[in-house]
Every structure is written in structure tokens, then in C-alpha cells.
């Protein structure tokens, strides 16, 4: 198809060719990519200093910049209030119109998704590692730090090393109670936390084709835990339908070539697959959930939230399981929707009531308990079952606390039983 030494291009290579204005690019090549969308959350406050130190006076394109505060919303400490203040002031000075402030807030990646800020063919960067989630749009979406973001705001571009690509082909049908989260956990168990470092992971095959956008978001989101630069799904009708009324700028849909060269190809058959669980202290310490259920692990806290799994579909699935049950005595169950619009949808559908009447705490939208800096902090000897993405030592506070990562349904099942449980137990 193209001239990459006689073979075609992967999806990441196609997007980076477009971003850099080159006919072809090859892995290892360093290119200057034009940025289609730049996103900042609280860490963006640290962008303001370097931006001025660089001598920059104007943001390259205010229409391409989104600010979405999410880690401490509303501010829970003076430090967080100062970060928010810096961002508000910067947005006002630079006339940045797309600021998702308290009341209109949500987790930054979910804001980008539900408002159509990232579309097929884009190069998107954000000051958060889980920016990879937006790769589900058929874009290269990567996390960067605040100093680098300052350069992006000043110049509208950044250097990137073209990554080699791992192709993941998924076949088969996910059984009842088995979700996209279980699929990505299984893959993490195989690829491990360093298996895709600096690389692109391109997901495809009939199982991926059949997934909804929210499910694809979950998978691309946790590609971060493999060390990847980006996780991607080629755009199809599902993508176009999702973006039909919300896309903020024109799409440039790209597909990987049939003869693209992959560094590695992984084939996964999900027929008969069990739900999965990542055990302490790494997201790649993955086992079948049924094994861990047999060990009767008691839980102190359950968390249904985070950019990985707190969309309306996750909330509905959780509420369906919760209905008619109570949160187990001694378990603190925290439910935090991924955005304010999801919160409102939960309100309209009676989902909030289902959770609160069962004894859960339903919070406003934020990163919530996921990152150990705001709420839902654990005591050293406690256990949390979580729908989030990381369980490293210290992730929810003390280094000894133990976090288990599972699907939203498994979080709810465990909150009901007071110990790590299989959601399929409740299916009848």
C-alpha cells in the first residue's frame, strides 16, 4: 500500500504520518507531530509557569484546548484550590473557552469522549497517563507531562518517536458476567506492565468489532498499564455513530493496512473465559476471579468509579445487580460516576437511589478513591475491591493496603457479600 520498505502501515503509523505531514513513517523515527487536541486537568497548573518561562504569550489555538478538573472536585484542600485558581486565571487570560469547571465537570478523559473532542485520525495529548483511552476513537492519544504541555500550548506540536505496534486480535464471545474489563485484565496478565513500553497496541478482530464505544474506552484506558504510548481501535460504524452529533472537528478516519508490519501479534479467544482479577500489587498480577473467590478475601471498601469503568453502562450494570440487595455490614461502598452528565443520567434513571438505599455512598463525579489523594483513602491493613486501573503500593494511601481490580459487576457482587465475589452468582 505505502512505501514503508514494501509493506503497509499500522494505524499508529498512519495517524503519525498525517500529524507530521509525511507520506510514511517507520518505527523509531522521530517526527514533529501537529496536535489536534490538548487536554489538561489539575496538573495543567504546572504548565502555566513553564509556558511563561518559555516566553510564550499566546496559546496556539484556544479552540483545541480543553481543561477539565477532576482529581479534587470541588477542591478538598487549599493546595487543590490553588491549582484550580491558577487554571481559571490562565483560561481567562488566554481566552480558553473550553473549561469544564465545578458543576459541569467530569473525569478529563470522559469529558473528551462524551463531548467529541477527539475524533478519528487525531493526535491528542493530555496531562494524564490515561489519555490513552481516547485511542478508542482511532486516534493516537498519549499522556505527557506539564512542561511538555507548555511547549504544546506554545507551538501546537511535539516530537514523538514512532512506536512499533503490537496487534491484538480478539475472537469469540464474552460470556454472561464477563466484560471488556476482564478482557483487558487478561491481556495485562499476558503482556505485563512493561510488555508494551513505548509501543502502540492496536486492537481488532470480531470481538472488538462487536464492542460498544464505552467498552472500547475501558480497554484502551488500561493499555496505559502495559506501558504503551497508545492503545487504539480503528474507527468503524460504531465510532461514527457515537460521534455523529458530537464531533468537535472534522474526522480523518484511517485504517491500518492489511500488510502492516507488527512487532508482535497476539491472538486471544475469549470463548469460555472467566472474569479476571488483578491482585496486589500490580495490574498485571492477574488471576481468574473464581480462584480468588475460593480464598474468601474480606473487603473493607468497594469502589465503583474512575475513568476506566464509571460510565452510564457501568452504573446501570452495577445498579441492576445492587437492586434488592444491601451493602454488606462493615463495607464502605463508594460509587462515583465519571462525569456530571452521567451523574444526571443516574439521577433520572433512579440509579442513585438504588445505590444509596442499599447503603452505598454516591458521590459527585471525580477521580474519587482511585488515586489516594482525595477521598476513599484506606488504612494500612485494609482491602479495597475496585473498578479502577491501578493497584500499586500506596495507590490509595498506605503502601500496605491491598487493592484488587475487577469489573463493575464484580465490585457490586463483592460489596453485597463483604468478600471478593463472582457477579455470576447473582445472575439467576
Amino acid at each position, binding site marked *: 500500500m505505502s512505501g514503508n520498505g514494501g509493506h503497509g502501515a499500522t494505524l499508529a503509523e498512519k495517524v503519525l504520518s498525517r500529524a507530521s505531514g509525511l507520506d510514511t513513517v517507520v518505527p523509531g523515527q522521530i517526527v514533529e507531530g501537529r496536535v489536534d487536541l490538548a487536554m489538561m486537568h489539575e496538573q495543567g497548573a504546572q504548565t502555566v509557569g513553564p509556558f511563561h518561562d518559555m516566553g510564550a504569550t499566546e496559546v496556539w489555538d484556544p479552540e483545541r484546548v480543553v481543561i477539565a478538573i477532576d482529581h479534587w472536585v470541588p477542591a478538598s484542600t487549599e493546595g487543590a484550590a*490553588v491549582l484550580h485558581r491558577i487554571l481559571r486565571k490562565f483560561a481567562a487570560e488566554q481566552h480558553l473557552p473550553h473549561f469544564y469547571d465545578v458543576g459541569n465537570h467530569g473525569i478529563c478523559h470522559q469529558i473528551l469522549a462524551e463531548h467529541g473532542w477527539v475524533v478519528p485520525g487525531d493526535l491528542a495529548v493530555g496531562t494524564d*497517563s490515561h489519555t490513552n483511552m481516547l485511542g478508542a476513537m482511532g486516534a493516537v492519544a498519549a499522556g505527557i*507531562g506539564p512542561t511538555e504541555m507548555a511547549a504544546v500550548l506554545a507551538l501546537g506540536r511535539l516530537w514523538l518517536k514512532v512506536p512499533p505496534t503490537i496487534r491484538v486480535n480478539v475472537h469469540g464471545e464474552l460470556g454472561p458476567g464477563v466484560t471488556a474489563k476482564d478482557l483487558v485484565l487478561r491481556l495485562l496478565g499476558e503482556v505485563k506492565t512493561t510488555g508494551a513500553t513505548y509501543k502502540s497496541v492496536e486492537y481488532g478482530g470480531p470481538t472488538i468489532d462487536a464492542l460498544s464505544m464505552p467498552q472500547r474506552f475501558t480497554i484502551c484506558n488500561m493499555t496505559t498499564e502495559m*506501558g504503551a504510548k497508545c492503545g487504539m481501535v480503528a474507527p468503524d460504524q460504531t465510532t461514527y455513530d457515537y460521534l455523529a452529533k458530537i464531533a468537535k472537528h472534522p474526522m480523518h478516519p484511517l485504517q491500518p493496512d492489511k500488510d502492516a508490519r507488527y512487532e508482535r501479534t497476539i491472538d486471544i479467544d475469549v470463548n469460555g473465559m472467566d472474569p479476571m482479577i488483578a491482585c496486589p500489587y500490580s495490574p498485571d498480577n492477574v488471576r481468574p476471579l473464581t480462584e480468588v473467590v475460593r480464598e474468601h478475601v474480606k473487603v473493607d471498601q468497594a469502589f465503583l468509579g474512575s475513568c476506566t469503568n464509571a460510565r452510564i453502562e457501568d452504573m446501570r450494570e452495577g445498579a441492576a445487580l445492587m437492586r434488592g440487595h444491601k451493602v454488606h455490614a462493615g463495607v464502605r461502598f463508594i460509587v462515583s460516576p465519571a462525569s456530571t452528565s452521567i451523574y444526571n443520567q443516574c439521577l433520572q434513571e433512579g440509579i442513585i437511589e438504588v445505590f444509596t438505599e442499599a447503603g452505598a455512598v454516591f458521590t459527585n463525579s471525580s477521580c474519587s478513591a482511585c*488515586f*489516594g489523594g482525595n477521598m476513599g483513602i484506606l488504612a494500612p491493613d485494609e482491602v479495597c475491591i475496585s473498578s479502577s486501573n491501578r493497584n*500499586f*503500593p*500506596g495507590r490509595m494511601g498506605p503502601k500496605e493496603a491491598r487493592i484488587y481490580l475487577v469489573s463493575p459487576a464484580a465490585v457490586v457482587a463483592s460489596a453485597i457479600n463483604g468478600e471478593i465475589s463472582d457477579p455470576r452468582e447473582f445472575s439467576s
Partner: protein
Amino acid sequence: MKDVIEGRVWTLGDDVDTDQIIGGKYLTIIDPNELKKHVFEIALPEFAKGALAGDIVVAGINFGSGSSREHAPQALRAIGVGAVVADSFARIFFRNAINLGLPTIEAPGVRKLFETGDTARIEMRAGKVANARTGAAVTFPPLPHHLLELLEVGGLVEKVRKELEARAGKATA
């Protein structure tokens, strides 16, 4: 950036992620001098008090994995760490550190050559890290030209500043 960097070594293990470098509870701290008091609080608690300017961090695989927080390399830079050398790095940490002008060297096999307290000698352009006590050494592919250049000017802020100045100069010329 010096071509030869020499310093006292602190060793760390594999998979030291950003939560272990700077915990989530410190992310609202902007002042690097405040941040540096909490660096490696989980992974190597004695470091924050004992480390001196010019010391070198030697780690195993996947150093700096996890979040995009620049607080991690900022805290190391505030201490004055001379270089971070590891068997491998996670990508955002690597970029952040280089962007801040902190020499960051991926040298597979380096970790097993060192113990805390040893002296490391790094030759940036030749691509060699040696242990002054034992004489053991590993080679590494030197950083690509544009990254060496970035370190040379002192980081991304300086590089962009020069670029914007040059652009303004052209505009007025």
C-alpha cells in the same frame, strides 16, 4: 549537561512507579523544594534526607511507570540528582525527566552492577556506565541527537524559548 557524570549511587529495585516516587497525597504541592522532602517515601525512605546534589539514582526495569506526574522528576531535580540510570524506563517519566534537563539513561543490565554507596561514572556520548569501585561497566546506545541537544540547552523550556526568540527575531528582521 556534562559529558561525564560522576556521583554517589542510590539503588532501587524494579517497577518503582510514580506512586512510590511521589505519593498521590503530595500532588497539590507545586514548590519543588517542598516536593523533594517526600521523594521515594515509599520505595526508599532514607533517600529524601540523605541524598545530596550530584548523587545518581540507579534503578531496575520500568522505572517511573504509572501516572504522568512531573512531580517525580521535579523532586529529583530539586535535590540536584545528577542522573537517573535504569535498566528501563516508563515512557512518560523518561520524557518528563529529559524535558526538565535531568539526564536519564536507559542502560539494560546496569542495576545489578551497583550497590548503594558505590560511585558511578557515566559517559553520555560514548554510552558507558561504570562502577568506580568494582570496575564493572555496561554500554548503552547514546541518546538520540535531539535529546542530547535538549539536555545541552537545559531542557524544553530553554529550547522553546530559543525557538520563540528566533521566530520573533525573524519577524522583526
